[in-house]
């Protein structure tokens, strides 16, 4: 630990000399409530480096602030986001509107793991059918918006960031450089994280929780004419030696190349206000193996690859009382994953199978949205999305493998997907009230339709996909209200999703599992219906000029058609905090707690998660050294070193114990 501290101090001071003052817009990383949308500001240039968050926290920590978002955690790295309690299959995560398909059959590489907070400006979380713009969804969507400069004559600027965390000896180093003029801009950003195993409460080391990550991002814009510009962007993200303590396998390499080219037209007087057309491509490699684990029933390698090419064209406009969005988008994905098992007897041949049989997904969709301001108080918003979704299996080996289970199955399957929503809003100061209805459909995911003996370590079953499933359909009703008066604000959201043809794995006792010593085989099938009810409330109150108190609570409930609990549903979770801000000093203390998990699903390997409470403290200070600005942030998380796990910790893997951290940012 000591040597990192020294390293960090040296790094810090060597940069201090060149740092310069830079104006900071006053902007909170607070959530802006907007009916079915939550926006998490991750930062615009330097101003992100102060205020609420631990600045160099992971993207997951930022997103967790949104009431609609929670994460399934399989270790310290790459948590899987859930929107309104719904994970990868039922939600859409995009980076600047780009679709990326994860390459891991075990969900170890959600899209959020391929970006870094230093290159993000904000995250827009849309709940339910409000999120159908970039693809068919049930639970909603997260769009991660990249950080980029504007065509302003601001010249060169940049910053250097560094941080350390005690719990896993994490070292964070980052640097960003921007150049902007009237004609061009370029943003370059690099971030590096390296962490050892973390320790749970009581100093218990969690083996295989280490990781190393590099992220490089560049965005460049060029103004062609007054209202026309072109932007190119690129992300390279590579994680190595990533441990997943809750799983039987680790990742030696997770790598993504994400590139895009966008053409933007703005028009002040025309029929539309903004027209953006983008083409993009991304390539994800995921090398998963168990080579670091001492005792395994059998050694195996499970690499996966995913490549996606896509485009969209989005038109935005305002005409009289209408504010509308139209978009066309299409993408093509190719997902392949394999498993090789190495028998103990060296005379035996390696065993091989395709776990994702080289599935091509082709999606073409249309989305339109219109906000109509009926009068000063009432407005309505309607959205309509339609898409054609095709899956086809390219690999004959994979197709023949699946035909063991489904002799009649075709290699291609095309479906039509409809997503639509309607919303009525009433705003009378200080109240806003909105009520909405939605209907959405989604296609089964690659794993759900075509997965081949995918081991789920949560319930201990091998999962077999089912290519004959219908679309899953969701009818939702939501209500939300917001009250804001003087220094007090309250918001409440409640959404009920009635999902028919709900896709879930059910045990088939006639099948024999591939993986050794496990519980059995589940095959995906469809329940007549399932219900998910999601609620959150948030209160903020400012007093004595410099203090703000904040509290929020989330409660979700999920039941299947026989009224038994669905897995991974959030119990009553509560958070309260108090912060103090004066000039350049800022302090915040908060407590996070959850009640005992009353509703859990033993069928899916869940047990009751006990109640817990965790206390966090953060302090920050902006320092000016010879007119150079530097933000120093220190804090402690889980101050009382509680040993706990939450409902969404895979196999009850405990959360980190007491963590002390320091972040330092120089802007120049």
């Amino acid at each position, binding site marked *: 630990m000591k040597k990192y501290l020294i390293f960090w101090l040296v790094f810090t001071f060597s940069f201090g000399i060149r740092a310069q003052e830079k104006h900071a817009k006053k902007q909170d990383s607070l959530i802006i409530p907007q009916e079915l949308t939550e926006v998490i500001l991750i930062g615009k240039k330097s101003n992100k480096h102060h205020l609420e968050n631990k600045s160099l926290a992971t993207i997951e920590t930022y997103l967790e602030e949104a009431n609609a978002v929670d994460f399934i955690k399989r270790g310290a790295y790459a948590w899987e986001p859930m929107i309104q309690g719904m994970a990868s299959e039922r939600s859409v995560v995009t980076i600047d509107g780009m679709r990326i398909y994860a390459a891991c059959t075990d969900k170890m590489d959600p899209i959020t793991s391929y970006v870094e907070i230093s290159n993000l400006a904000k995250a827009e979380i849309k709940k339910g059918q409000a999120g159908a713009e970039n693809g068919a969804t049930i639970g909603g969507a997260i769009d991660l918006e990249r950080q980029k400069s504007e065509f302003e004559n601001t010249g060169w600027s940049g910053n250097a960031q560094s941080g350390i965390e005690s719990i896993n000896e994490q070292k964070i180093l980052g640097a960003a450089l921007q150049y902007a003029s009237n004609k061009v801009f370029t943003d370059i950003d690099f971030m590096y994280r390296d962490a050892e195993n973390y320790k749970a409460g009581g100093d218990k080391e969690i083996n295989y929780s280490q990781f190393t990550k590099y992220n490089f991002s560049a965005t460049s814009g060029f103004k062609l004419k007054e209202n026309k510009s072109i932007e190119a962007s690129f992300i390279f993200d590579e994680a190595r030696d990533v441990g997943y303590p809750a799983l039987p396998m680790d990742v030696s390499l997770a790598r993504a190349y994400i590139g895009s080219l966008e053409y933007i037209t703005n028009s002040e007087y025309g029929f539309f206000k903004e027209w953006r057309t983008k083409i993009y491509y991304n390539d994800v490699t995921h090398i998963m193996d168990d080579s670091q684990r001492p005792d395994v*029933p*059998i050694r195996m390698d499970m690499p996966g690859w995913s490549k996606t090419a896509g485009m969209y064209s989005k038109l935005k406009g305002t005409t009289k009382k209408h504010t509308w969005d139209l978009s066309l988008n299409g993408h093509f994905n190719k997902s392949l994953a394999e*498993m090789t*098992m190495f*028998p*103990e*007897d060296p005379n*035996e*041949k*390696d*065993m*091989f*199978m*395709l776990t994702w049989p080289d599935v091509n997904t082709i999606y073409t969709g249309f989305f339109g949205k219109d906000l109509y301001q009926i009068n000063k108080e009432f407005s309505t918003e309607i959205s309509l999305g339609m898409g054609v979704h095709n899956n086809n299996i390219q690999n004959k*080996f994979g197709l*023949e*493998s699946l*035909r*063991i*289970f489904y*002799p009649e199955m075709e290699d291609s399957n095309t479906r039509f997907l409809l997503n639509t929503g309607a919303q009525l809003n009433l705003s009378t100061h200080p109240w806003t009230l909105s009520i909405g209805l939605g209907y959405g459909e989604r296609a089964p995911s690659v794993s759900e339709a075509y997965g*081949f*003996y995918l081991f789920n370590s949560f319930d201990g079953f091998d999962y077999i996909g089912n290519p004959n499933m219908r679309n899953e359909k969701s009818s939702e009703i939501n209500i939300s209200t917001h009250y804001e008066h003087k220094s007090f604000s309250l918001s409440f959201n409640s959404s009920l999703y009635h999902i028919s043809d709900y896709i879930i794995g059910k045990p088939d006792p*006639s*099948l*024999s*599992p*591939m*993986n*050794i*010593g496990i519980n059995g085989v589940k095959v995906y099938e469809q329940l007549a219906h399932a219900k998910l009810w999601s609620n959150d409330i948030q209160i903020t109150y400012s007093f004595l000029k410099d203090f703000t108190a904040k509290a929020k609570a989330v409660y979700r409930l999920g039941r299947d058609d026989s009224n038994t609990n669905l897995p991974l549903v959030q119990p009553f979770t509560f958070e309260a905090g108090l912060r103090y801000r004066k000039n350049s000093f800022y302090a915040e203390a908060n407590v996070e707690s959850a009640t005992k998990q009353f509703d859990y699903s033993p069928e899916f390997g869940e047990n009751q998660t006990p109640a817990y409470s965790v206390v966090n403290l953060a302090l920050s200070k902006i320092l000016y050294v010879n007119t150079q600005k530097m933000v120093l942030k220190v804090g402690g998380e889980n101050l009382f070193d509680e040993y706990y796990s939450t409902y969404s910790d895979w196999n009850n893997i405990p959360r980190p114990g007491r963590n002390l951290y320091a972040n330092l940012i120089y802007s120049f």
Partner: protein
Amino acid sequence: MKLLKYISFFAATILFSCSFNDDTPIQINEAKDLILVQEIQNEAHSIKIFTEDGKLEQGYNKIYFQIKDEEDFISNAEVSWTPVMHMEAMSHSGPHSEINKKAGTETLYEGYIIFQMAQNNTEYWELDFNYSVAGQEYSAKDIIEVIPTERNRVSVFTGSDGVRYIAVLIEPQAPKVAVNDISAAIFRMENMMSFPMVNSYTLKTDPRMPSMGNHSSPNNEDLFQAGLDDFYHGKLSLTMSGYWKINLQLLNEAGEVLKGEEVTETNESSSIYFEIEF
């Protein structure tokens, strides 16, 4: 109109070139997709023995041969054959088929032989041909090389009825991760030299992967004589590549188990089985 002209011109050209080819005498080598195993000679002829891979192995072997005098292939011979294994204490034959002309060929004869054992240092196989060409009798014989297979494709056992049986795996020759067609033949040992085919039995299969917790696979079908030929046919699902043990149970017409045990938690394997590795 012009298009039509072109088409007729092309058609004429094609016709012409086809008929031109037909006029040329063809000398197609009918054994060109096969590999020569060995040549057995007598004073009048030479018999060229072929298989698909150029080897004779323990188990089922599909064998082709051509008989040639000094100049020409003999296409009208009446042939019979007998494989004989010379062991230290005795000699015996193995199950083998009649010989027929391969359909659609002029010069290729075909048949199969099951070598229930491989050769070793002191014991070996010999193949005897007896044939007549235009009323004249000939014979030819020689030692052949029968190599052992790494995996067990033939099973010799005594059933609960006291009869000695030979079960041999024929297909799949190239197993795949898929539902494979599986076929086998079952013979009864009448005496050292006679192995008639057994009819109307059932061969139950239970494929397992012993190195992976002995897991099985779904949607297999037991082997029956389907009437196409005398072989037993069924379906074999292999969910991954690697080493599979196909545990067997032989049932007679009455459904009584003659040999083989069910695989259970406590019984890892049947006493009769085939092995497949790919």
